[in-house]
């Protein structure tokens, strides 16, 4: 899984909990990974746009405290894609772990 695919997975995982706006997604990735993973905010939006174009997430603008905010939420298609990608990721992690532990995992 390359960096772009990893960012897509992280975005979907964050949105699985609740709808969020862009900044909150970046913060959630940073916080949940204890600062280890940090989405470059510039690359976050192209990734959000691509996910939205594929129908995996959808966005809606809301008026909050006089400002228009765009909130992203996971679609059913996105939830299914997340489940699939999670399984693939777990399989990869297990495989790497098995090699690292010398086949005693």
């Amino acid at each position, binding site marked *: 899984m390359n960096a772009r695919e990893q960012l897509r997975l992280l975005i979907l995982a964050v949105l699985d909990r609740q709808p969020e*706006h*862009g*900044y*909150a997604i*970046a913060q959630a990735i940073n916080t949940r990974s204890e600062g280890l993973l940090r989405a*470059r*905010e*510039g*690359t*976050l*939006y*192209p*990734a*959000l*746009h*691509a996910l939205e*174009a594929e129908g995996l997430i959808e966005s809606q603008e809301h008026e909050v405290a006089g*400002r*228009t*905010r*765009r909130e992203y939420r996971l679609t059913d298609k996105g939830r299914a894609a997340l489940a699939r990608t999670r399984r693939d990721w777990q399989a990869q992690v297990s495989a790497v772990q098995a090699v690292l532990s010398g086949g005693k995992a």
Partner: protein
Amino acid sequence: MNAALWLTRATQNLPAGVTTRVSRDTLDHLHDAGLPEHADVKAVLGDPEAVNADLKRLYLTVRESHRLGMTPPPWQGWLRVGALLSVAGFLLLEPHSPLAGQGVWSVLFGASVLLLVLATARLHPVRRDRWRDLTLSLIVALPLLVGNDLLAGVPTLPLTLTLTLLISLRLSTHMHLDARIRRTLPLETA
């Protein structure tokens, strides 16, 4: 690098609707992060050229949008018709021509098939027409690529592989372009 300069570089050569959406998203983000627009934003937002490249993979450029809005010149249509007639002519004449089966015949025939495939490189901007043209090319080219004895005399494997590769590339390019058009249009018409 302040926000305005970063956005200018990140949205370079992108159409107005896309630029507006990206600018709004980014400025909202900076506002949420408590970062003033005149501050150096590169450390937070990353390399604007890399973002620009990402965005161009997703959306049409200004030049592409402009080109798609133009009617293609008539010679492109005639080139396709000419190539198609030439392939059809070779097929019809093959049983009667004394040259059939000889090297020169095969080379000319292969060249006309190649011209037909290349002529579809300039396809219509309208999706329905693009698919029609591609389908037509595939219908004509595929039977010729799989074991037609007209190609006797020329090494068929390299020709077959080249033509298959060309067709696959055209198909892939146009599917990618199609996805970019579908992403760009809603932002431009919003």
